[in-house]
Each structure stands twice: as C-alpha cells, then as structure tokens.
C-alpha cells in the first residue's frame, strides 16, 4: 500500500493498494487552517510573519517570512567609509550594539593588522559584557511575556535601564553607541566608571537571584518550556546555530574561547551548557537557562576586567586610529560572540578605496531563525510562541 500524499491539505487520503486499485479515503470533514501570525503580533518580537498551517491548535507547518525590516545594510556599506559603517552595525542588533560594533571593528582591524592598546581592549570587553547582560535581560524578560508572566519583564527592564545609563555615560548614547571605533574607542571612560560598574555588579547580583526565583524556577514556566522545541546537537550544528542556542543543545562552543579575540583568553569564565537535570538538553528551557547563567558569567568577566584594567594617565583611546582607513586589498571573515550567537562580517577590500567592496553581515538571528520551520512541526500554538521566544530574535538583525 502506498500513500500518495498529494491531497493532504483537505484531509483526503489517496491510497494505492497493492493491486493498483486506488482508494480515496475521506476523513470527517476537517480542514487545515492557514493562520498568518504577524507581522503585527505581540509575540513575534518585531515584524516577523509566520504563515502557520494549523490543524486546530496544532501547527502542522510554519513558514517564516522575513524582510519587513530590511534596511539595505550591505548595500549601504558599499557606499560609505569604513568608520561610518560602525553606527549602522549598532542598528543591526539594536539590543547589543556594543557587541556588534566590536565584531565589526575586530574584523576591520584584522584586515588593517593594527595593534590595539590594552586599556582599550579591557574597556571594550567591559562594555560588551554589560551590553550582553542588557541583551539577555531583554531576552529573558520578553520570554516571560511570551509565556504570560509580565512582572519579570519589568524587573528586567528596570535593571537594564541602569546598564543603559552606564553605557550612555561613557558613550553618549543609550542604545546606538558608536563607541567602539576601528582601532580604538570614541572616548575614554569617565573617572568614576570603574567604581560605578563595581557598584552595579554588587547591586545586580541579588536581582539575578530574584529573577531566577520568580521566573526560571516557577513550575508553570518550567512546564511550559521543558521539552518544547528540542533541537539535537548535530542538527543544531548543521543549521549553523551559535551562541546560547547552540549551547542550549549541549555543545560547548563559545567564540570567546574557541576563536578567541580581544583579551578573552586572559579571563576566567565558564561556558554554561545544560546538564539535562533541570531541563531536557536542547529544549526551550535549556536555551533560557543558558542565557540566565551567562549573566552570571558576564558579571564574572566584568569583575575580572575591573581588576586587571590598566590605568593610563592621559590616555587617548583614539591614539592608534589610522587617519585614513584604507585596508590593503584582501578578504576577511571576522566574528565575535554576540548575545544571540556568532555575528560575522565578511569584508572585501580592493586596497584602493576607503569603502569596502563588499561587506556581508552574518547575522546570528537569521541563521537561528532558519530552523523555525523544523522546530515548529507538530507543536501547539502556545508552544510555537515559546519556541520563537527561546530563539530570541531581533528582527533588526534578521533583516539587516
């Protein structure tokens, strides 16, 4: 017997029997429903559209449609100078501007082959880790909202606000910093900065515990996320997943360790991966847990950086910035570990112009989201929401 699944959509099964007779089998007249989720939907985190084919509450298939926030980043890069691209990288992943700036700057620095002052590296790492915490707070908070818990979200935003204040204090802007420049920084940090970050770390530690008790350990939350959207490690790697998504599947892979940049090799920190006790490895809860635990690791990194940061009198963070950034001809693929995974830049320079010939941004969310179609098969609609939330997409980065 062979099933010819052609007319699957209207619940009619055409079965060819062994003697080549064709039987058309009709179910009770139920139909699949096409449900367009988004682009205006509370839990698609922006302007993602999922076209779901649903069978009652069960999602048979969900096809993501992107591009509602496409802002021609790559086209624009070919028209502007290398340093002027930095503010645009902020706008890619607007929740983790510092990290994306860092990824772009280390890529161009690789091409330029310049040495960065140590103090600059430390400041970069501190700001990047602060921004990572801020980004994870948004991820955790909005994940709570997706599952119906509104209060953790506001607690997260209250603490994120302080991080934004800190970053505004050093860079002058709250979200779109343009702080990390190719070869340096735009300003040195204020005199009190070290002390204030130190105070922030001690202020923030109990809040992390509170957040964990309120959200992560809540039984309803666990029940909603445990075992939902399981992604085996091999498939995750094949999908090119990175960051907390890949670590949620149990792969200990962190570019800060595996492809070290900046001063990360000198710092001590763990790479949290789920052990399968509290969560099933690879499910939504694991991904959430990895983010929650990474906040602790980031705090650790910040503390170490504050200890080790060299104090230089009259420090000029713009000292080694080349007057005119015109890299020699060549290609480079540079990347960094962003809160959402690997953000890479593929840059081609022709050696003549001050503008890149090609600047491709490898967006982490874009790659992570591409597994949505597989993950959504056979899930309930509430689980679909839980899965989208655990991917933690920023549509600005998906669509660029």
């Amino acid at each position, binding site marked *: 017997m062979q099933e010819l699944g052609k007319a699957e959509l209207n619940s009619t099964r055409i079965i060819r029997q062994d003697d080549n007779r064709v039987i058309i089998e009709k179910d009770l007249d139920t139909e699949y429903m096409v449900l367009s989720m988004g682009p205006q939907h509370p839990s698609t985190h922006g302007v993602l559209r999922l076209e779901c084919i649903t069978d009652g509450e069960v999602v048979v298939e969900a096809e993501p449609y992107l591009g509602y926030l496409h802002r021609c980043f790559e086209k624009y890069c070919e028209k502007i100078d290398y340093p002027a691209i930095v503010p645009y990288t902020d706008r890619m992943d607007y929740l983790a501007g510092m990290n994306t700036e860092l990824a772009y700057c280390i890529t161009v620095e690789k091409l330029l082959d310049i040495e960065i002052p140590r103090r600059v590296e430390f400041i970069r790492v501190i700001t990047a880790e602060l921004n990572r915490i801020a980004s994870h707070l948004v991820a955790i908070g909005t994940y709570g909202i997706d599952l119906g818990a509104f209060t953790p979200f506001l607690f997260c935003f209250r603490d994120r606000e302080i991080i934004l204040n800190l970053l505004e204090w050093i860079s002058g802007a709250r979200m779109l910093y343009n702080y990390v420049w190719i070869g340096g920084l735009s300003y040195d940090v204020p005199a009190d900065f070290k002390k204030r970050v130190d105070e922030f770390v001690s202020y923030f530690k109990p809040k992390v515990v509170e957040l964990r008790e309120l959200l992560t350990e809540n*039984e309803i939350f666990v029940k909603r996320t445990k075992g939902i959207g399981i992604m085996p490690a091999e498939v995750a790697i094949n999908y090119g997943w990175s960051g907390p998504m890949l670590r949620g599947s149990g792969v200990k892979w962190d570019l800060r360790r595996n492809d070290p940049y900046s001063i990360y090799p000198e710092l001590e920190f763990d790479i949290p991966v789920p052990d399968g006790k509290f969560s099933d490895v690879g499910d939504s809860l694991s991904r959430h847990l990895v983010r929650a635990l990474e906040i602790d690791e980031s705090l650790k990194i910040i503390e170490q950086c504050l200890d080790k940061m060299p104090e230089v009198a009259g420090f000029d963070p713009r000292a080694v910035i080349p007057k005119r950034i015109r890299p020699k001809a060549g290609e480079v693929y540079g990347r960094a570990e962003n809160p959402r995974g690997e953000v890479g830049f593929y840059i081609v320079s022709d050696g003549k112009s001050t503008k890149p010939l090609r600047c491709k941004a490898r967006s982490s969310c874009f790659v992570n989201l591409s597994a949505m179609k597989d993950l959504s098969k056979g899930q309930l609609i509430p689980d679909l929401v839980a899965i989208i939330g655990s991917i933690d997409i920023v549509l600005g980065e998906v669509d660029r």
Partner: protein
Amino acid sequence: MSEYFSNIKTATTTIATGLTITLRHFINAVKRKGDAGIDDADFFRQVDGLCTLQYPREVMPTPANARYRLYNNIDDCIGCNQCDRACPVECITIETIKVTADDLAICGKTSGGQQKRMWVPVFDIDVAKCMTCGICVSVCPTECLVHTPVADFSEFDVRNMVYHFGNLSKIEAQAKTKKLEEEKAAKAKAAEAAAASGQAPVPKPAPKPAPKPAGDQAGE
C-alpha cells in the same frame, strides 16, 4: 504517583516563592527611586522602590557628554565642509562663500584664533535625519559642531526639525557673492595684466558650492 504529588508540591512552593517576591515589591512600593544621574556618587543608594519617572516633570538626567541634539557654534565655524562629507546620512547642508580680502577683519577669527576665510550663509542640520552617531563632531577641526545633551526636541511640524545655523541672511549672502565675483574679476584682470607682463600667479581654486542633497525638502 509520587511524581504526581511531587509535581503538586513543587508547583505550590515555587508559586508561593513567586507570590512572596511580588508581595515584597508591593510592600516596598512606599519607596521611590531618586532622580540622581549615573554620574552621581550616590546613584546606587537610591535605586530601591518604584522606578517610574513621570516624564515631563521628572527627567532622567543626561550625562554631560551625551550625544543628542546637534548644535553648531557658527562663530567658530570655518566652513571647511568636513562634517558634511563625513555625515553618513547627509543631514548637514553647507553653502560657503569665500571671504574677500577686505572683509577678513569683519569675518573675524574663531575662538581658537584661526582666521575664518569663509562666510557660511547656509548651515542647515536636519535633526530629524540625524542619527546622532557623532562622526561629524569627531572630524570638526574647530570643535564648533557639538552634540548637546538636550534629548527632547520634538516638533509638531517636521519642517521645524531643520535647524539653520548660517551666519548670513539671504540678502547679505547675495551681496557677498557679488563682492567675491567683483574681486575675482578684479583679480582675473590683474592676473591677465600680470600674464601679459609675463608673471603668472598660481590661481587659487574657488570653493565649490556644496552639493545640494536630493532629500533637502522637509517631510521626507
């Protein structure tokens, strides 16, 4: 069966923990966060309690180096056009007229003591387009172009978002252009005379008029 009861138990305890946390915050609602900025030494001593700021009356302080509204101190501007070229979004429009020799004194010097050689009749910044990246500020040689910490400058009419900083009115600008042309003509005559006498002075290139960006009109 034991799993069934342990489930009920964990559910009850974790829900109770959550409820205590929210109740604690509810009771703590008698306190309010202060409005000291992050550069204040006491910042972390006042972050307990309700953290809302009622915006028009209570404002989150912006630090001194905050990059918000652009401001150009035209008295110091030498019309070098660098900001216009550096701006990634082309929100700055500059037109310059070369200062004639006899006007140099009237045009004056910058606060740094540099002689200004350009009239700047048009220095328009479309702050609606500006993305406050700070690149123009970093290239400004006389540090006359700055981002101010003024964050709230909303307008009812988008045309009011174009800020004019030019130091000459239209009529004055016409007069100056005319004067410059006269001087040029005079110079050209002199040069011709000089060329006739065999000495060719190197002609200085006249400043190019700033290219008008396509999206000059407001409302785009």
